[in-house]
């Protein structure tokens, strides 16, 4: 190949130079990073003394963001694999209700209820995926059907079995259960008590809990969120399977021809999304002690929004888990921050829409740069 050397120098003659700096900028997370910076800057400016950045305030928006993160990780990987799942919200309601029915109505041990619920929900996720890959239908439609079906059962089941649509009393049942702690517990209580004693973090000044630290530990919810983000990020960028996820979403046919087991990848991602939704539901049920038929409404959109703000491409094949996590963080901070800043609460939706729009336009611009302005 002696002409190889001839080609090399000429290739660049037709390419205008592009600065190193600009090169460094173009990564899928960029939109998320910029967004996060802007959002924090704004709230530091306008809501600094509202308590938003006290230890309690931080915990507050961290928890909301962590919730979004848990479902965003699943939605992100699924979206990169070229599909999406509108049944996430209904799945959250359904999973919570099933745990409640198993543990309260049927009186099974909580750990068993949780494990069975995970098995059931992941199986439903697999069914979703199976229908999508076998019929070739768009996942929008298939999962829309499951949005209705699961929500229907979430209302119907407790109504027929228990004559109510909120089942409470799970806290009592979960008392001392090892698996329940994994979802509803709080870590590092000692450390936080010590921090409170040392006046490093605030303590209650009145009421029953006077002297205790305002923030008494890290809720497992946040631990799950961080663990899932790390897991998702490593899976996506550092493993063979991650490459398959990109490939399946980028061009399923091409991936299949190159030996990527596309159907398996997609079904697994649907299962993972269901897993994330179930984690969300279990944390919620364990924290609040009750399951309601209205849980999880609109969560599917919120997950998709977080993922898209985080730079993923709705059509698949492109995105990043870190980006999605930042999207979730932005989402959570904005939502809570508006309350801290005292903005009329019904305007929250308007802000959400505007931020979404701004974020995707920014992301598109970045992506065009990466793929060469096509």
């Amino acid at each position, binding site marked *: 190949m002696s002409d190889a050397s001839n080609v090399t120098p000429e290739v660049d003659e037709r390419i205008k130079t592009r600065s190193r700096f600009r090169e460094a900028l173009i990564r899928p997370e960029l939109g998320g990073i910029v967004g996060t910076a802007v959002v924090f800057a704004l709230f530091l400016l306008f809501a600094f003394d509202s308590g938003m950045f*006290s230890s*309690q305030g931080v915990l507050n928006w961290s928890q909301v963001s962590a*919730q979004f993160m848990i479902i965003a990780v699943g939605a992100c990987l699924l979206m990169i694999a070229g599909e999406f799942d509108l049944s996430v919200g209904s799945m959250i309601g359904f999973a919570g209700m099933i745990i409640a029915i198993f543990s309260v109505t049927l009186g099974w041990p909580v750990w068993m209820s949780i494990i069975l619920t995970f098995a059931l929900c992941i199986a439903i996720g697999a069914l979703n995926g199976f229908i999508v890959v076998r019929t070739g239908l768009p996942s929008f439609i298939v999962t829309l059907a499951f949005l209705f079906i699961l929500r229907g059962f979430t209302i119907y089941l407790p109504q027929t079995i228990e*004559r*109510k649509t909120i089942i409470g009393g799970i806290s009592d049942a979960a008392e001392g259960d090892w698996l329940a702690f994994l979802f509803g517990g709080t870590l590092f209580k000692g450390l936080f008590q010590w921090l409170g004693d040392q006046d490093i973090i605030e303590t209650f000044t009145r009421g029953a809990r006077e002297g205790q630290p305002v923030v008494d530990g890290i809720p497992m919810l946040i631990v799950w969120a961080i663990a899932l983000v790390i897991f998702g990020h490593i899976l996506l960028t550092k493993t063979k399977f991650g490459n398959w996820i990109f490939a399946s979403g980028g061009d399923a046919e091409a991936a299949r021809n190159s030996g990527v087991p596309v159907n398996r990848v997609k079904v697994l991602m649907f299962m993972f999304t269901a897993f994330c939704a179930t984690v969300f539901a279990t944390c*919620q049920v364990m924290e609040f002690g*009750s399951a309601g038929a209205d849980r999880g409404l609109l969560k599917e959109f919120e997950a998709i929004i977080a993922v898209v703000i985080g730079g993923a491409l709705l059509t698949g094949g492109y995105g990043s888990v870190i980006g999605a996590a930042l999207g979730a963080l932005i989402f959570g901070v904005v939502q809570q921050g508006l309350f*801290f800043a005292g903005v*009329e*609460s019904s305007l929250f939706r308007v802000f959400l829409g505007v931020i979404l729009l701004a974020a995707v336009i920014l992301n598109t611009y970045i992506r065009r740069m990466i793929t060469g302005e096509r």
Partner: protein
Amino acid sequence: EGEKYVLVSHAPDSDSWWNTIKNGIALAGEQMGVEVEYRNPPTGDIADMARIIEQAAASAPDGIITTLADYDVLQQPIKNAIASGVDVIIMNTGSAEQASEVGALMYVGQPEYDAGKAAGERAKKDGVTSFLCVNHSIQQPTLVDRCQGFADGLGVELGNSMLDSGADPAEIKNKVQAYLSANPDTDAVLTLGPVSADPTMLALQDNGMAGDIYFGTFDLGEEIVKGIKDGVIEWGIDQQPFLQAYLPVVILTNYHRYGVLPGNNINSGPGFVTADGLEKIEQFAGEYR
């Protein structure tokens, strides 16, 4: 024997409070030996509810029990139903005047605005001057009425005191916390049902205000009853949904069988449930209470 009654509500089908209503008509149906059905617009869209009333009328039941969540929307369908020979009782939302205006037999329920106002007046007596109203379904006019009534009862502007919290418990909890830490001088919290009350209670427990801040709520539920017992919640306004569902069925059946009808409307609420005498309530909260 075997009369058929349909109860039409305005609640989206995830609203858990309406459960008691379902159980109420089911029990009444069983006891009276009549057929009962519960129907509601899935998303809580009142325009859809109008269609459901029309539909119910077309299926020719002996009576319809319905709420008057939006007088403008619902009056015509109700009038038409009555004109086509179906007897109607208004329950829950609406008022005695509106009920007689559309030609219903009677009204069983608790006028929402008045209930809110009564609560506000009570809170004022207890020294409350500012409040937070946690609205978990801001699209529903009846819920706004409760907040508005409370504000008027207190004699303050509603303004930003009404929080559009959404129905997700974690969001409600964290929004309440955010609001309270941004507005630390808030005296009282008002929640509008179990959906918002349960997470609000947790929020207060978490930020140490539980038992410290004045906390009232509409409608009962398991956790609410527990909260009243624990002294976290001052009072719950019980409009006794069971009666709102049970009584109309019984009244209609007896009316149709024997032609008897009470001469007056029935106010099932507002009754303030406090820490005294909670036993029965505890047992049946969420089911018949």
